[in-house]
């Protein structure tokens, strides 16, 4: 069986085949999720080398413990949990970083504060090339605090539900919700700098 013939195979089948030691099937699962896991690992560790290690360890562990995957959640939710654990272990080992938990108390005070209010162009992304846009979006996410980044990636980029995100990150549903709101508002503000309509400055509506 070639790799390409697995491309359309559903996940349950791929997991079942992988359990029987089918390298190609497991390779397809790796192919589907490696980019997302790699991004998440970089968001949590903030370090390229650690992220590469986390990526490898995640899929090694996933393969090792495949029989523990119940199949009542998505495969991706399950491997995110493994990846987050591996990434946090890296941070603890490094010790230079104090944020060893995604559940650390973060300032959730009244700072859903909005500083800039300006309308955007109808299709703001049209003003930029694909590469430029990718750079802008990436830089904006990278400038969020790590606990917000992971929540934002899983909810709004990878499109997991609130419950799945909570399960994957080991957070409560209200914690996911409040972090998501803050991440969205902060990103909105960062992107406004690039996307606001010409001549349409802050508080123009007041």
């Amino acid at each position, binding site marked *: 069986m070639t790799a390409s013939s697995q491309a359309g195979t559903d996940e349950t089948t791929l997991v079942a085949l992988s359990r029987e030691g089918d390298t190609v099937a497991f390779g397809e699962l*790796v192919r589907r999720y*490696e980019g997302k896991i*790699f991004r998440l690992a970089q968001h949590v560790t903030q370090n390229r080398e650690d992220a590469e290690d986390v990526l490898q360890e995640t899929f090694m562990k996933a*393969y090792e413990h495949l029989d523990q995957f119940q199949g009542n959640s998505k495969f991706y939710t399950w491997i995110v949990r493994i990846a987050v654990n591996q990434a946090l272990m890296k941070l603890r080992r490094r010790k230079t970083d104090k944020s060893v938990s995604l559940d650390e108390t973060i300032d959730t005070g009244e700072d859903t504060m*909005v500083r800039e209010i300006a309308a955007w162009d109808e299709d703001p992304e049209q003003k930029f090339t694909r590469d430029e846009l990718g750079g802008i979006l990436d830089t904006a996410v990278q400038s969020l605090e790590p606990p917000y980044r992971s929540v934002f990636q899983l909810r709004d980029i990878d499109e997991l539900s609130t419950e799945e995100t909570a399960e994957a990150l080991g957070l409560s549903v209200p914690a996911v919700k409040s972090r998501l*709101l803050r991440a969205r*508002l902060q990103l*909105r503000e960062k992107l406004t700098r690039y996307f606001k309509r010409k001549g349409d400055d802050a508080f123009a*509506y007041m």
Partner: protein
Amino acid sequence: MLTCKDFLHELSDYLDENTDKELRAKLEAHIAECPNCWVIADTTKKTIHIYKGMDPYPVPTDVQSRLMIALEKKIAAGR
């Protein structure tokens, strides 16, 4: 009548369409009257839309092949 603060608090659920009808009507009444909250809601919606389906990070080929070699070794050795 909702305040702007109330509106912001419910913004995520509003954009995800997770509010009940009654609350939704109140939120919509608020943005009909409040241009600032309308802009915030509209630009936040565009923010979410723009990020949806953003390409994952490309995994460098050397990292990818190291992973596949390690996995094949593991599979060959049996779990």
